[in-house]
């Protein structure tokens, strides 16, 4: 057994050393299986469903003993199919965490916390990166009519320059709304008509208007995007959203599991949305709406506290702002699941400083692509930009059309060699987040004899954690259990005063609640206090 363990560990270590690029679905499965084999006591791995593309949706549970009885964090990667890093962060977190499983601190952590890791919610879409044609794809393998014209997949991308990547077309046009970036002529930026600027180019994704409807690549392969398919603020009928919320198997498989996982107190997802670099501000109007549209005040405070923790751990600056477009997992986790919900892209292109040796100056117009190109050059990253090249395009006879532009994936996925430190920081964050988890304890237990066989029992139930046992919004949700304080008598006792069962909506961080009972009789009785999100504590009392 030990030898076997050693071999798998070595193999796995070797694999991680030599990995040069992100893992495709098969490699993701191998890494998850290797972890499960190496740590059979600490992990369980199961496929919760298969997508329409035939890919497994994996769930790796990390924890000890009865994992369903420990407060849990759900970690979700592959929220967007073009965000390879998200899956890498989720699997990398599991690998890093388990590597330290022998240490006292991680052992103690896994004794009281469970992690449910869904490494990749978009395996159909993510496989596009590893296919012959690299293109920015978030939709799964469900066949859809994105432009709702009655035909499916009739106008997808076309690799006009045959370089295996879908980039862009720029078309010289008097009615164009793009112009060249003043500091980097490779980059196109929007002309500001309000300032009297004129556009020179139309900017399109690389392709042909195959169905001649005037739109380019509006209905190609790629169906429903996971991060548009969830139930909060779902944009029904929008391309990629689905005909109704949770229409997709992978969405439902995750929801089915999580709704029954009453122990989950926080959801951390890796995707474009970001409420960790800067927290979502409390907006009283939005929070008071009938269809709640903003964080309730105590929950905004928790977001702020966790955001501080995130920034301290990752020391990442200059995060791009994000807004929820509807149907996303960040919003679902809070508004519908009722848990603390956090999301981060994990990485973004750092702000590149002008290289004075090359006589560069600060950009006169801030633009993410111009910044990327400057940063990439400084990092020695090449071959991520295709120089503009004139082609003959059937839809624009007699017009100058060029193919070129930035590669797909590069703006939100770092080169693989930069991934490891990002994984380490996010692992540390997920460990430190668990240190804040709600934790119930029973203190100041007292028994006072009142008279013949009559005893008063009193105690306090406290939450020792850094977060309330329930998000404020979660208190309203019946997919969360209440805090239960129950006195369990046996045949020899009778409760004369007090309620046998108390149900509380929540106990705040560092909060306490007092209880007392008057009991007649003798012998042992049990007091149980807690809830799945904060753990259940039992104490025995001898009368």
């Amino acid at each position, binding site marked *: 057994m030990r030898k076997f363990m050693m071999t798998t560990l070595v193999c796995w270590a070797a694999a991680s050393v030599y990995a040069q690029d992100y893992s495709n679905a098969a490699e993701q499965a191998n890494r998850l299986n290797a972890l499960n084999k190496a740590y059979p006591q600490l992990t369980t791995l199961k496929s919760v469903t298969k997508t329409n593309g035939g890919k497994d949706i994996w769930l790796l549970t990390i924890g000890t003993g009865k994992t369903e009885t420990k407060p849990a964090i759900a970690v979700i990667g592959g929220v967007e199919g073009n965000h390879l890093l998200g899956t890498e962060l989720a699997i990398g977190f599991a690998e890093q965490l388990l590597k330290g499983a022998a240490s006292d601190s991680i052992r103690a952590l896994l004794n009281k916390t469970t992690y449910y890791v869904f490494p990749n919610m978009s395996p159909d879409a993510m496989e596009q990166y590893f296919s012959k044609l690299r293109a920015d794809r978030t939709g799964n393998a469900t066949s859809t009519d994105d432009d709702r014209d009655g035909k499916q997949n009739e106008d997808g991308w076309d690799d006009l320059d045959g370089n295996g990547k879908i980039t862009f077309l720029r078309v010289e046009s008097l009615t164009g709304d793009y112009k060249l970036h003043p500091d980097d002529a490779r980059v196109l930026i929007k002309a500001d008509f309000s300032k009297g600027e004129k556009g020179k180019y139309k900017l399109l994704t690389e392709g042909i208007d195959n169905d001649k*409807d005037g739109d380019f690549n509006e209905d190609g392969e790629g169906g429903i995007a996971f991060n548009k398919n969830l139930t909060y603020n779902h944009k029904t009928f929008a391309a990629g959203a689905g005909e*109704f919320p949770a229409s997709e198997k992978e969405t439902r498989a995750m929801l089915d599991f999580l709704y029954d996982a009453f122990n989950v107190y926080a959801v951390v997802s890796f995707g474009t949305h970001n409420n960790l670099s800067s927290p979502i501000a409390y907006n009283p109007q939005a929070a008071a709406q009938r269809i709640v549209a903003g964080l309730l005040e105590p929950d905004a405070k928790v977001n702020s506290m966790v955001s501080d923790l995130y920034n301290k751990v990752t020391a990442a600056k200059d995060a791009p702002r994000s807004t929820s477009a509807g149907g996303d997992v960040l919003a679902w986790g809070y508004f519908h699941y009722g848990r603390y919900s956090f999301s981060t892209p994990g990485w973004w292109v750092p702000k590149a400083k002008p290289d004075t040796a090359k006589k560069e100056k600060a950009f006169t117009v801030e633009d993410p692509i111009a910044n990327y190109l400057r940063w990439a050059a400084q990092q020695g990253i090449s071959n991520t930009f295709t120089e503009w090249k004139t082609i003959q395009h059937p839809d624009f006879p007699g017009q100058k059309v060029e193919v070129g532009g930035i590669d797909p994936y590069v703006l939100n996925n770092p080169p693989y060699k930069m991934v490891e430190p990002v994984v380490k920081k996010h692992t540390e964050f997920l460990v430190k987040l668990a240190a804040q988890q709600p934790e119930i304890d029973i203190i100041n237990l007292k028994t006072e004899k009142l008279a013949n066989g009559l005893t008063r029992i009193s105690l306090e139930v406290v939450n020792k954690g850094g977060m309330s046992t329930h998000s404020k919004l979660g208190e309203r949700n019946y997919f969360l259990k209440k805090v239960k304080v129950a006195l369990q008598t046996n045949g020899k006792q009778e409760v004369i005063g007090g309620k046998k069962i108390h149900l509380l909506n929540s106990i705040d961080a560092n909060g306490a609640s007092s209880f007392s009972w008057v009991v007649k009789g003798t012998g042992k009785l049990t007091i149980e206090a807690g809830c799945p999100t904060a753990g259940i504590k039992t104490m025995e009392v001898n009368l």
Partner: protein
Amino acid sequence: MKGMKADIKKPKHMKQFILKIFTSILVLSSGMYVQAQQPNQVFKAAGSPVNPKVTVTWNRYYDHAGISEICKKIAAAYPDLAKLQSIGKSYEGRDLWCLTITDFKKGNADTKPGMYIDGNIHSNEIQGAEFALYTAWYLTESFGDTKFIQELLEDKVFYIVPTINPDARDSYMHKPNTGSSPRSGVIPVDNDGDGLVNEDSYDDINKDGHITMMRRKNPNGRWKVDPKDPRNMIQVGPDEKGDYELLGIEGIDNDGDGRVNEDGYTFEYDPNRDWGWGWQPNYIQNGAYKYPFSLPENRAVMEFVMKHPNIAAAQSFHNAGGMILRGPGGQEDVGTYNAQDIAVYDAIAKKGEELIPGYKYLVVYKDLYSAYGGELDWFYAGRGIYTYSNELWTPFLMYMRDATRDPFDNASFSFDRYLLFQDAFVPWAEYDHPQYGKIEVGGMKKNFGRAHPGFLLESDAHRNMAFSIYHGFHTPKLEVFEITEKDLGDGLKEVTAVITNSRLMPTHSSQDVKNKIERPDYITLTTSGKIISGMVVENRDLNLSTEQEQNPATIEVANIPGLGSVTVKWIVQGGGKYTVSVDSKKGGTVSASK
């Protein structure tokens, strides 16, 4: 849960009972023993099948097994008019039966404009199943005699799913319940959030299968026996002394948490808050489950509807109150219903008010209450299908005048007394309650107040069916009304076709057009000549048209309006004979040649 033992026996007994009834029906319909069923001894009452092949007694209710039997018999008796399929299984594995009713000898069933009907989404609202089933029965049994039905079934298809909540239907009938329970399905839910499931349900203290009321003698009570009807309890006035207190619905505190009946099988969730339009979670919309279509029964209906884009109209049967309801369910959706669609809804529902006395045409969010994730909202806003929910039974039907639904209203008591001979009431009787001591249990039975009394069931089923038929009749009926050829010279011909729709509903509701839910209608010209160009004609007189450059042989039109027409034309080189075919998902297929 006390009282389970008695209940377990009941369904078995009931099943045997129903089986016996069916055996006797078989014997009856073969005319072997009972003379009154012989064709030469019966005389047709107008508008009803005189000698039906499938004999059904329409003054009682059927459990799921009973409904299954009737469905199977209809399908067996009328193979050319009825096909039975299971569209899915309930949570406990019961089949969700769907009868497809159409003239299968004429045309393709699944391309005819379709009318979908279901009942019993709320399990205690039982008569929807009988009403839906009556529709299937009536259409098949009347086909032979009635020209209107023959024409209707040539043009249209009816998809009839009598119960979309069979588990809890059986639970309602065979387990102790009130008239209002269970509203839910049977997937267990922890209502009070204490970590235990269904640990404190109703308790049938008097073991009669009905959950009624508990009262206790109390010199300080605020209730007294109604002098006009001793079965009724009334509140005493401010200067009066009462002699009873009411202790609520029959039950005990099973889990010792100081609450009675707070977590049982009777309300797990609301299946009519589970649909994929405007869905909201349970803290906003009480009754919502995990996500839209998280209940298997609704999921099966959704999948069936998605596979049948020919469904243009739908009806769901609820109870009670005598209402013909349309959406929106939520204030936020007011904008989804525009004037054109409302005009269609109004025209059909106003006819319904006429056909079903005592029923009022109302709008859910403003006349009833705001509800998100309802079935009719998904059908209309999510799929563009004109849909009503009827709240069956109204106390109006007791004396054919306005009355109330209040079970303590004397109209109910007098109706029970003089027309039902007190069959709807469990007389008060004394019992020992583990927490309350000596109490009395009694009150209206679960089959009164919401469910029709037997003798009124068939007539109201017929009226509601007539409304559904009117509704289904007004799904689009397309015709290639005109094909005209005009010589343009130089060997070119202009071929103009007019496609009419002679019914109220357009091929695409405006919600459908706005969101492009269903594909456009295709109007195709087939000719031996070469089609040079094709166009939609906006105004034939003033010669305004819009060319469709791609694929001119098949003109795509966004909609063919109700009681209206569209005109298209082609420029053709050579050729002579023209065939124009129309292919519309909700309007059906037609073609004509010239």
